[in-house]
């Protein structure tokens, strides 16, 4: 696979949320506004790329028997770094994302990429893979959180885009809306990829 294919693989073909459907907790929980969605997406890109880099560099040093705990420590360290940085420099976003920042550590996609890709591939490929998967995650977050913010609030990034007369669909920003809209989004993605193949 060349670099572009690796990147593209993460964004489209194996998109973590829309295709693989892993790491759903945060996706469902914090996508109530576009800003939160972008914040979470960027945090995941940072942790995913960072841990891919370190794990790829250490792949010859870490013995096979202890690789999972070693990966978990590296991922947890990067998660804590992001946690501290966000707590210090993006305080309001930090408060909005809450417990889902430390929970990045159990986002299956990160351990899965460490195990399936970074521990077997070169540094440069692992960086591209981390960025690709991360951007794929971010794209899905942006899609879902924009839909929820527009329907549930009539705004995008806080700016009103639907007329005042629009009665916000409260359901969209409440928990049921998260499930139903993500389900529909995945349905649409399935439909599009099917019709492409056909």
């Amino acid at each position, binding site marked *: 696979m060349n670099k572009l294919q690796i990147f593209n693989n993460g964004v489209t073909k194996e998109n973590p949320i829309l295709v693989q459907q892993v790491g759903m907790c945060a996706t469902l929980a914090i996508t109530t506004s576009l800003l939160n969605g972008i914040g979470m997406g960027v945090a995941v890109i940072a942790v995913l790329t960072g841990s891919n880099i370190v794990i790829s560099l250490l792949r010859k040093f870490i013995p096979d028997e202890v690789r999972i705990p070693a990966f978990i*420590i590296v991922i947890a360290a990067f998660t804590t770094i992001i946690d501290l940085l966000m707590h210090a420099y993006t305080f309001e976003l930090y408060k909005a994302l809450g417990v889902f920042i*430390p929970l990045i550590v*159990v986002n299956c996609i990160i351990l899965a990429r460490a195990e399936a890709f970074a521990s077997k591939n070169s540094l440069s490929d692992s960086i591209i893979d981390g960025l690709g998967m991360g951007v794929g995650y971010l794209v899905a977050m942006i899609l879902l959180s924009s839909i929820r913010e527009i329907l549930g609030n009539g705004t995008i990034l806080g700016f009103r885009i639907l007329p005042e007369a629009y009665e916000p669909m409260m359901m969209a920003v409440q928990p049921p809306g998260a499930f139903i809209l993500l389900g529909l989004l995945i349905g649409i993605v399935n439909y599009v990829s099917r019709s492409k193949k056909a």
Partner: protein
Amino acid sequence: MDLVSLFITSFIVNNIIFMQFLGACPFLGVSKKIDTAAGMGIAVIFVITLASIITFIIYHTILVTFELEYLQTIVFILIIAALVQFVEMFLKKSAPGLYQALGIFLPLITTNCAVLGVAINNIIYEYEFIESLVYSVGTSAGFLLAIVLFAGVRDKVDYADLPDSLKGSAISLITAGLMSVAFLGFSGLQL
């Protein structure tokens, strides 16, 4: 808040799946049959309760004393991973029957964010020991309730005539959304 209402709140009103979304991965992945769903649910209750007790004690005795609160995430996830390994080994040796039933779910639980989520929430909400115990049991019982109910519904959904694109996780999510509407009704409970 007294303990009974804390239990009911964490069990139903703030249901971990339908209201807080913690543990959505195993919820969507495992719940295809009621038996396996119940097995997973019971394993989760077991691990969450144990993990909460241990993380609570370690946090308040070691991390706070030495001002190492920033290592919380690393320490907690390692405790959970080790605990799951340990429980697996223990069950294999001393309770093979139970191991047969729960064993296959245990490795999945390490990356179940419900476990870490509950452990962290115990700290964020500044619970006392007893409160954190009640919260952990209530929350994980809520997981069992959600996953079993969902498996029951999904059994029927499998026979439904759906557009191809909606089959699989899409319809699962929509179903979960509709069940979440029902749980939203509980938020009117006066506790």
